């Protein structure tokens, strides 16, 4: 569980750190979009991926498919 907590909280903390102290970094280009948009959407879906990974890990722990 600890590595999933790190996988979730580290990027979220870094994101709020950038928004708070280095907002100009969000203006870097990412293809046709500014980085801010794919970064925020990526973090939103990262949350969902973390829940999927945890559910899979817990099912394996319990020996269920």
């Amino acid at each position, binding site marked *: 569980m600890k590595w999933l907590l790190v996988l979730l909280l580290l990027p979220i903390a870094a994101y709020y750190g950038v928004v708070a102290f280095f*907002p100009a970094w969000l203006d870097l280009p990412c293809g046709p979009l500014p980085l801010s948009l794919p970064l925020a959407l990526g973090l939103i*879906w990262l949350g*969902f991926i973390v829940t999927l990974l945890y559910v899979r890990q817990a099912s394996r722990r319990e020996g269920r498919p």
Partner: protein
Amino acid sequence: MNLAQCAVLTLLAFSLALTLWAARRTRSRADFYAASGRISAWQNGLALAGDYLSAAAFLGAAGLFMRQGYDSLIYAVGTLAGWPLLLLLFAEKLRERGRFTLGDILTSRFDTSSVRALSTISSLLIVLFYLVVQLIGAGKLLGLLFGLPYLPAVLLAGLLAIVYVALGGMLATTWVQIAKACLMLICGLVLAAGVWLKSGASLPALIAHAEALHPAGHGVWLPSKAMHNPWEVLSLGLGLVLGLLGLPHVLMRFFTVPDARAARASACWATGIVALFFTLNVVIGIGAIVFVSHAPAFLDVHGKLIGGDNMAALHLARAIGGTALQDIVAAVVFATIMAVIAGLTVAGASSLSHDLYAGLLRRGQTSEAGELAASRWSVIVLVLLAVGLSTWFQNQNIAIMMGLAFGMAASGPFPVLLLTLFWPGLTARGAVAGGLAGLLGATALIVAGPAVWVAVLGFAHPLFPLANPALCSVPLAFVTAWAVSRFTRQ
């Protein structure tokens, strides 16, 4: 009768039919508080999302994106991050240790009346603030749709909540929330697809158009001036992430599934649904900038959006699908508010009847039938109290009350629950002191902050510089719980 009124009445008839169906299956207190743990994982996932996605998540997010652009996504990232954290830290443990309320979890470790009293007070305060906000929204929307004055409109909304919850308990509430979550997702998909098609199905064109129309230009994709204080941003983020983990009506939903596996799966379902909705909200928000913010049909003589920024999604529906779509979206918004009111009411009434009446006043010496009757009376008392408060607060800034509910949830129940589940060194006195410090600290800092001290009370400078108290009130709760536990440990 117009289409919006027909749609609202149809949704009401459907939800009342669901309630009557559920009422026939609600015979015991386990049925009333937790649907006897018979809700499946996907059903609870939808209900969790339905409980959480209030009208603020729909109307508020679209309006915020239209006005402040990227800030809306800063809120969404923090809010979403609370869901996986809820799964990782609490979901299974809540299902394994809890029965009906948050108080059951805390008293499973500290069987003292002070701990149950703390749980009751914090749950009731958070639910009441949240409920008052939702009732104000329901009263104003009903007034708008049916031309009713505020008091009859809010009484009608309260009466509906009493019928849903007092008759159908958690089962009716769950199905009302499932229906609402489905309707809200469909609405989001239709609006996002409409924006996409109306813009020629080109993301770069949509983005360029939004930049050209928004007053901030390219700055629409960056944090606005409202985020200029870095400590405010950090405090906001902390409050958004942790607030979810202290909301009684969300935590209580994990008692409605049969086992820990279903609790995990339901949190996963809820996270996916909320993530999808937040993604759709981005397209809806950009659509509001492009198709609403400069359209003369939606602006008053002063160039302001008719009905305020929160009406952006409703105006967008009209821009995409005419008044028919606008009426249907308005009806779905009403269903959304009513479902959240039902969820809050069942959580608050459970705290009143199970924690306060059965646990504290009767010391557990009450019959099943007696507690069930008390829970139904609790629904009536809670809703009438909330209706009275909503009448008093109807012209206040409801965002402050939402902030207060979230700040309290992050600073009171969350630290106590986390320490109760994970720290063996916590004592009963430490739990009570930490919870009270968090609750009182969050309240005091919000009152002393710019949102109340300056904007409401009219002072020139705030006593506390931040509008969001979490950065100070959450550590205050943890430090107090640790310190008091250390000095009261035998």
